[in-house]
């Protein structure tokens, strides 16, 4: 009898998920302890994509750091460039022209749509549907082609400069953006309608990976992950930066804080971004976009500044300390993906192995930003 009981005892299994795994969205590693198909515990391991961007920044001149920001959240390059440029501009106490700001907002919102489209595709892949991913890439590709005609690059643009833009937009910029809007709207609908209210997708995401509002605040979640839990917090609304106070848009909010609510918030956000672009392109002022600094070296006076902005993934913060030389003394980034990822241990407790990839996908992390 005793022997039998001893034989029947089961032990947990350690399942190593990543860094080479199709659904960890990059080089992320999860050490799962599983009992059958249930997850008992998870130990996340990061750092496989650490490039030391913050330390590297201390050795680069202010103009040169923009390119490092391009490579942090590589799905939202313009948003990242914007927050760094804003930080240096505040350090220098200068304001870019209105036209610059409007073009920046248009490009950032387009980039937000591109990033969220990719998210819809990947959450589909994580849940086992392959078609939304290919649909989403069509819309994203259109946006990237537009970016290419403006900045010359599809991803690593290096287009925003401190105090201005690298160059004036093409002559037919307004027409291009206006032409692309209805097409993008159609692409978004086509991509998400296959997924959002599908019964199987609902059963895979509804009430899965629930995080309450209190927990979300405690863990420092921001962006769609926080709004999915029902907190109405968006830096664009609460502390408007750039020219966001000029536009009329809503902040979509979920209720339950599960995977589906985070998905739904992102889908709605794409439509709000389109609203912002529509208003911005109508009001686009004339003027000069060249930076008054030109190509001169920047030597801000001693001081420090913290600037935050709303990225597609949440609130990105840049803490910049200047010691009066042409290079920053210290640069610290608060990456939204990293803070969102910190909740993974809580979210994966007592979930299924199959859910782990969906939950991770619903957090929408970018490892380039987590590891920097």
């Amino acid at each position: 009898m005793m022997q039998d009981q001893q034989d029947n005892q089961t032990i947990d299994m350690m399942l190593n998920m990543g860094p080479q795994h199709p659904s960890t969205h990059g080089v992320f590693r999860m050490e799962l302890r599983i009992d059958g198909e249930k997850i008992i515990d998870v130990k996340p391991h990061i750092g496989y994509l650490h490039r030391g961007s913050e330390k590297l920044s201390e050795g680069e001149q202010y103009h040169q750091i923009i390119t490092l920001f391009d490579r942090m959240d590589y799905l939202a390059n313009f948003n990242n460039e914007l927050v760094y440029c804003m930080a240096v501009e505040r350090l220098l106490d200068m304001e870019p022209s209105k036209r610059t700001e409007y073009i920046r907002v248009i490009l950032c919102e387009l980039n937000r749509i591109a990033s969220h489209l990719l998210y819809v595709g990947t959450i589909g892949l994580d849940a086992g549907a392959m078609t939304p991913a290919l649909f989403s890439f069509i819309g994203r590709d259109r946006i990237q082609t537009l970016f290419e005609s403006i900045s010359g690059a599809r991803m690593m643009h290096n287009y925003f400069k401190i105090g201005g833009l690298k160059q004036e937009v093409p002559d037919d910029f307004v027409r291009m953006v206006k032409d692309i809007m209805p097409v993008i709207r159609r692409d978004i609908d086509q991509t998400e309608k296959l997924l959002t209210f599908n019964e199987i997708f609902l059963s895979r995401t509804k009430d899965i990976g629930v995080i309450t509002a209190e927990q979300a605040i405690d863990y420092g979640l921001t962006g769609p992950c926080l709004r999915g839990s029902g907190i109405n917090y968006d830096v664009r609304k609460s502390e408007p930066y750039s020219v966001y106070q000029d536009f009329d848009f809503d902040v979509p909010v979920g209720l339950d804080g599960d995977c589906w609510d985070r998905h739904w918030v992102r889908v709605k956000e794409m439509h709000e971004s389109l609203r912002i672009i529509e208003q911005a392109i109508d009001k686009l002022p004339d003027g000069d976009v060249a930076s008054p600094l030109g190509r001169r070296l920047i030597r801000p006076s001693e001081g420090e500044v913290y600037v935050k902005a709303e990225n597609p993934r949440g609130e990105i913060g840049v803490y910049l300390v200047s010691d009066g030389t042409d290079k920053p003394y210290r640069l610290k980034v608060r990456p939204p993906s990293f803070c969102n990822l910190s909740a993974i241990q809580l979210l994966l407790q007592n979930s299924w192995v199959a859910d782990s990839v969906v939950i991770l996908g619903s957090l929408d992390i970018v490892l380039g930003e987590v590891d920097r």
Partner: protein
Amino acid sequence: MIASTGPYFQDAISTLISLLTLFSFLAVTVLSLVWLERKALGRLQLRLGPTRTGPFGLLQPIADAVKLVLKEDIVPNEAEKVIFWVAPIIVVISAFMLWVTIPLTPSIVVQNLENMGLFYVGAVGVIGILGLVLAGWGSANKYGVIGGLRAAAQLISYEIPLIMVFVSIAIVTQTFNLVEIVNLQSPVPFILVLPLGFVLFFVSGLAEVGRTPFDIYFAESEIVGGPFVEYSGAHWAVFFLSEYINTFAIATLTVLLFLGGWSGPFLPSIVWLLIKIYAVILLIFWIRGTLPRLRIDQLMAFAWKVMVPLSFYLVVCCSIYVFYGLPWWALTVMSIFGLGVVGVIIYQYITAPARKVAEVRERLRLLQMSQEE
């Protein structure tokens, strides 16, 4: 003695020839299915699919096959070598064995088992599970083990409704002979008589061959291919082959049992059969291009709470039909009633989240309205 070995010898030769013909037919079919799947999925996803190899990319499956055969066949150090080698063979042999008795027309069949055709199909179809479990276990990979166990759980669960559908058809037709079953469908195909049976058979068939939304045991995004994760080269190609042969078998059985087999006007019977089979296969590909994947617990709950009770209900209906000698449409009515019940169940349990979502949206809208005021 000599006189009696003559016909046996001839019999053996003719069986061998028909087996070889069957093998080449299935090989060509698999190539066509690979091409069709890539092309159909490509069109569904607004892509072109293969275009570079030959006209319309028709030679793509051959290029794939050559690539797979030429690749190095890696056996992991930790693997149980014998099991690792034997598993794909078990899977592919069971896939081929199924075809021995499946008739393509009354005359084109290797060996029509007069008294037990349907029984044989049900019995042989289960052997493949063993190969999958062994493949997962033998490759000494945790993903493989999980995949193999998932395969065992899933396939055994869905075997029950499948066999119950076989049983109900046998009760209605009073025969296990597949040719006879097709001939009995000449006025009314069984999809009209047993709509419930058709749905049960098709859904459990999808689960049997691991097609979306039931591709749980090799779920790419979770367990990275499950039992096949360590296989490469020719061994993997064998799994691939058997997967497509099984898909083709399920489509063929659907056509034979429910869609009237080879009967149809004007065209030769084999053409009708192939048209119907490929229509069912395109339906399977369409589902693959549309739906996400279920989770293992949802899958098992669906099998044991919906499929199995319904299949028993179907058997009871068929027994009542035969016992009282009712007209054929009585079965249709009973079937549709069963389908209605399952519809209500699915509405209650599967789409409950969807209704919750609608509720959430309504609450949000009210919230926004109150904020505006």
